[in-house]
């Protein structure tokens, strides 16, 4: 038998089917009823990984060197919780100030005004270019450099003055140091985000008579958020860990608190495990928040995915055209 008889026979037996097929199994060929092949290698890999992980976790939990009972004892202890609160509030406050300062600095760096560009450029250059630890120590010791802080007209009379030692406490030094450092990084992240928004968007808003600030707030920044949020999440997590640096200026953060305990009890590893578990817990909660925020700012796109799945093929064609 050659192909030729089939070619002639097929239109007769099954007029709607493709040629060169005899058509008896056409119903079975409908891809809607297809089954996935069993991914043998994948299953095997999963089993192996699960086995090793369980074994490792079981080993860790049974290992007396980790001192899990000690971990449990101290996990909710006053000192640890106080340290946790210090870490969290330092991170949150510094992050808020950092974002609030970073936004105008980012806008300044993109400004057509050389003064704004120069000042914001210099800020980023200095605070990104020097170690955070050094910045913290300098802020803490500000009174050595400037014994008095005063508000005055340049080369003119002084309006108000404070003793540096009264203003700079470990807390204010920590917040100023962390926040300014954060502002420098956030400024660059925000600038990247603003640059990622198509130029036509700002132009359109301006063509409709929107003032620049409103156009930024309503049109550009909401679109820039998609690019800004993921690295900001990163920054926040780095910030939570960077707060451990403030122990050098006598702030009792989470790490400092567990250290103060193990300096007394010599249970170094269990106390470090307390800190590790808390850090992991906080960053996990943050990741959940981050993905919620990301989903919110992806709404113009996100909807499209849902839409394509639900709607009829006619609409899918339209969405394809829309991306041109």
């Amino acid at each position, binding site marked *: 038998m050659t192909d030729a008889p089939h070619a002639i026979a097929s239109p007769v037996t099954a007029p709607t089917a493709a040629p060169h097929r005899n058509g008896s199994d056409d119903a079975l060929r409908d891809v809607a009823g297809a089954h996935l092949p069993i991914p043998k290698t994948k299953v095997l890999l999963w089993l192996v990984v699960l086995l090793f992980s369980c074994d490792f976790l079981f080993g860790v939990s049974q290992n007396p060197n980790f001192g899990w009972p000690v971990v449990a004892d101290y996990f909710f202890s006053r000192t640890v919780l106080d340290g946790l609160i210090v870490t969290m509030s330092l991170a949150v406050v510094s992050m808020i100030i950092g974002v609030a300062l970073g936004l105008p600095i980012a806008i300044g760096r993109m400004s057509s005004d050389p003064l704004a560009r120069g000042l914001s450029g210099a800020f980023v250059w200095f605070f990104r270019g020097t170690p955070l630890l050094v910045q913290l120590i300098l802020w803490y010791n500000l009174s050595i450099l400037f014994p008095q802080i005063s508000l005055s007209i340049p080369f003119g009379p002084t309006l108000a003055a404070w003793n540096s030692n009264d203003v700079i406490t470990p807390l204010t030094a920590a917040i100023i140091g962390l926040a300014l450092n954060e502002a420098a990084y956030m400024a660059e992240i925000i600038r990247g985000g603003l640059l990622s928004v198509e130029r036509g968007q700002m132009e359109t808003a301006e063509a*409709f008579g929107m003032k620049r600030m409103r156009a930024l707030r309503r049109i550009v920044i909401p679109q820039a958020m998609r690019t800004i949020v993921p690295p900001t999440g990163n920054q926040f997590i780095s910030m939570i860990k960077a707060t451990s640096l403030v122990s050098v200026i006598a702030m009792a953060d989470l790490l400092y608190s567990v250290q103060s305990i193990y300096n007394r009890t010599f249970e170094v590893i269990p106390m470090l495990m307390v800190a590790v578990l808390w850090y992991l817990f906080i960053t996990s909660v943050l990741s959940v928040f981050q993905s919620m925020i990301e989903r919110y700012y992806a709404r113009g796109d996100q909807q499209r995915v849902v839409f394509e799945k639900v709607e009829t093929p006619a609409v899918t064609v*339209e*969405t394809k055209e829309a991306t041109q």
Partner: protein
Amino acid sequence: MTALANPSTQTQPILRACNVHKSYGNNEVLKGIDLEIAPSEVVAILGPSGSGKSTFLRCINRLEEINKGFIEVEGEQIGYTLRNGKLLALTNSQVAAQRSKMGMVFQAFNLYPHMTVLQNVIEAPIGVHGVKRAEAVRVATELIAKVGLSDKLNAYPRQLSGGQQQRVAIARALAVQPKILLFDEPTSALDPELVGEVLSTMRDLAKQGLTMVVVTHEIGFAREAADRVVFMDGGHVVEQGTPDQVLSNPQHPRTKAFLGRFL
């Protein structure tokens, strides 16, 4: 219609461009454009690519600054004010106020992708013109119905076809009740079968007495809907007149050459 064909003698023009020059560095793109547009007039601007049509539209709402000459909308000079015999540049917010009188429709639609159709349309009325939200929504809903997209009020731009997006962009431009509507090749980014729906929306607007400046390559649209056709080439207005004069009986060799391509 006869009044419109001879605009400048009847009423004060809505738009008056006088000897407009514009350069990008050493590249002079507009070399002295003179153009007057009367209220309710529909002007189609034709011309080869690179002849400065988009640049001219962008100069009208001051997305670009001009180097010489002046442009007036309703007798008010765009970007400058004459005070005690001195010409002073306006501040950014004064320019914004002038722009708010114009509506613009872009080749690439430029809808705000993070906003729904309704939000796109009410953004400028609420944010720029201080219209109350309820009123803005009412007007927007009407306009969106007029461009035939009532069922897409809460859709996002990416869920719409190009033609639908451009019709939303037209509704958005209408929502600010513009004195003059500027179109920059509104159908050039569309698949051929979607061009018709946008052109028919624009034809309806032309009939309603809106003042429109339309840069287009749609000769058919220019012939039917425009009161006047302006042909630009090399930064000059080479020829203008009624659609019949310019399209059926062009005088200038460059107009003839350009139109020859569409036969």
